[in-house]
């Protein structure tokens, strides 16, 4: 009794998905083309298809712009999907890697690893970040659990804010007491897409791809979880196992993002809301749309961050909040109307 498949292509959300794919491709090319020296689409295409190591422009495309654009896409998608999963599972519209302390935890672990042990190999940083993010998540859960009412959305948010503030304060303390060593870290801590090459990305990308794939495969069950644990259980979902799987997904996505670009907030908080604004609450749509919107958003922000006050650059983390905050406020207003 297999129904004809094309129903998917006629779904109104499929058009949103297709449109976003095109926007994402366009922003990707724009991101590659714009910079200290503007390159035409033709030149970019030549650099990618017939690479010539003697051509300076080709070197710029391969070593600087392509890694940066690809990182913008992967990190944007990762953080947005991580936020979407967290908001679905906790039924808390404020849940996100930044608010629930995961970003600070990951950043804290990397700062400690680098500042005290001198570890900065991209082979290890994602795992160190994952350790930090898990530690922070567990701490937030324990604090919320101990508070009156237990693991409510409210308590988790408050505990997340407290843990974030605490870890951020310690990072600042490290920074102030050891200014020379932290000079390199300062930019990373504000969220920077610069300075990574394709090798770094390729060592981390498989984990991101795996986690994103897992998120897509689990997406239909997130909708069930968002309908409450009892409903999900009565529909045949093993809720505890599912929550662990999703938690692992979120931690890997957050950790890899932080390892690549440092803590970039806002994407994880805002993008899932924008996605639901377009496609509703069915997570089979929310997850892929969040991934694409996150990628588009970070590509756009990073392009603007390089252009607006060029030749200087605004750090992407700062730019994403500067651009993201007004969008968030606007959305709230639209929703209230």
């Amino acid at each position, binding site marked *: *009794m*297999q*129904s004809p498949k094309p*129903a998917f292509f006629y779904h109104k959300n499929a058009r949103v998905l297709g449109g976003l794919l095109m926007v994402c491709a366009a922003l990707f090319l724009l991101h590659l083309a714009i910079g200290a020296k503007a390159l035409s689409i033709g030149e970019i295409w030549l650099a990618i298809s017939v690479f010539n190591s003697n051509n300076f422009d080709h070197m710029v495309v391969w070593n600087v712009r392509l890694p940066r654009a690809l990182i913008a896409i992967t990190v944007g998608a990762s953080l947005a999907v991580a936020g979407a999963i967290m908001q*679905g599972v906790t*039924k808390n*519209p404020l849940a996100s890697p930044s608010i629930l302390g995961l970003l600070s935890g990951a950043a804290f672990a990397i700062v400690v690893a680098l500042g005290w042990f001198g570890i900065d190999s991209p082979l290890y940083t994602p795992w160190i970040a994952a350790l930090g993010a898990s530690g922070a998540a567990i701490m937030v859960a324990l604090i919320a659990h101990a508070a009156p009412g237990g693991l409510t959305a409210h308590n988790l948010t408050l505990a997340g804010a407290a843990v974030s503030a605490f870890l951020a304060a310690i990072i600042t303390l490290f920074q102030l007491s050891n200014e020379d060593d932290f000079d390199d870290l300062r930019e990373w801590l504000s969220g920077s897409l610069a300075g990574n090459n394709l090798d770094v990305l390729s060592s981390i990308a498989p984990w991101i791809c795996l986690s994103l794939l897992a998120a897509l*495969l689990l997406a*239909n*069950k997130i*909708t*069930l979880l*968002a*309908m*409450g644990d*009892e*409903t999900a*259980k*009565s*529909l*045949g*979902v*093993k809720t505890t196992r599912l929550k662990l799987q999703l938690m692992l997904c979120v931690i890997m996505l957050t950790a890899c993002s932080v390892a690549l670009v440092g803590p970039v907030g806002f994407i994880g908080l805002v993008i899932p809301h924008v996605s*639901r604004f377009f496609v*509703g*609450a*069915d997570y089979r749509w929310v997850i892929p749309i969040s991934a694409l919107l996150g990628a588009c958003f970070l590509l756009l922000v990073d392009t603007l961050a390089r252009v607006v006050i060029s030749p200087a650059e605004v750090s992407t983390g700062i730019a994403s909040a500067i651009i993201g905050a007004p969008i968030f406020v606007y959305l709230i207003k639209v929703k209230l109307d």
Partner: protein
Amino acid sequence: MNLAIADGKTSIIIGANGCGKSTLLKTIARVLLPASGDVILDGENIASIKTKHVAQKLGLLPQGPITPEGLTVKELVSQGRYPHQSFLRQWTSADEAAVYEAMQIADVAQFSELPIDDLSGGQRQRCWIAMVLAQQTNFILLDEPTTFLDLKVQVDLMRLLAELVQKNNRTLVMVLHDLNLAAAFADQLIMLKDGKIMHNGPVENVFNAANIKSVFNLDVDIIIDPRSKRPVCLPHLRSASVCALEPAL
């Protein structure tokens, strides 16, 4: 506690707040696991049946279910098909048909593309019932499905559920707050107090003033509704002394 649920009938659980009605219902649904004892579903211990197989036989509508913001009626009802799907067996025309049938029965098909948030309380509750119906289970468990609804909506909803039992031969187990609604629609009435079954049987046998006094500590008179021939309880609203002060009453 020992409780048998009659097949193809409506069983309604009543009892004071906090007496364990919902706990009993959730335990029957395998959402909670009993510390001791077993729930037997069609001759099999429910704890040893796979989670998804339980969900193919038994549907639960929890009390005050959470509707994710922005979910449309059809999307919500479609979630009821989850237990019938797997990685290899995705959405089929049978799923589509079940969803439409459920929406027809619950009378929400006309809203199918609307977000649930836009509907009234009674319409929302019907959407949730459609979700459970789409699950196509023989057993349907409902935890206070009429709470917070207007009286008319409550009655409509109960009629809809009664029809399900009669026409579609489903087995209904329900927790209800309203004693008269329970007495009007139950085949089997289960009266719970402090986690124990005090009285269990057909309405006409167990729905009497003495039993209600023992379970709810409430003085009532029982009269028979001339239209439905069902018993109705009237609580003693005022103490005799207060009535005596107001002879007009």
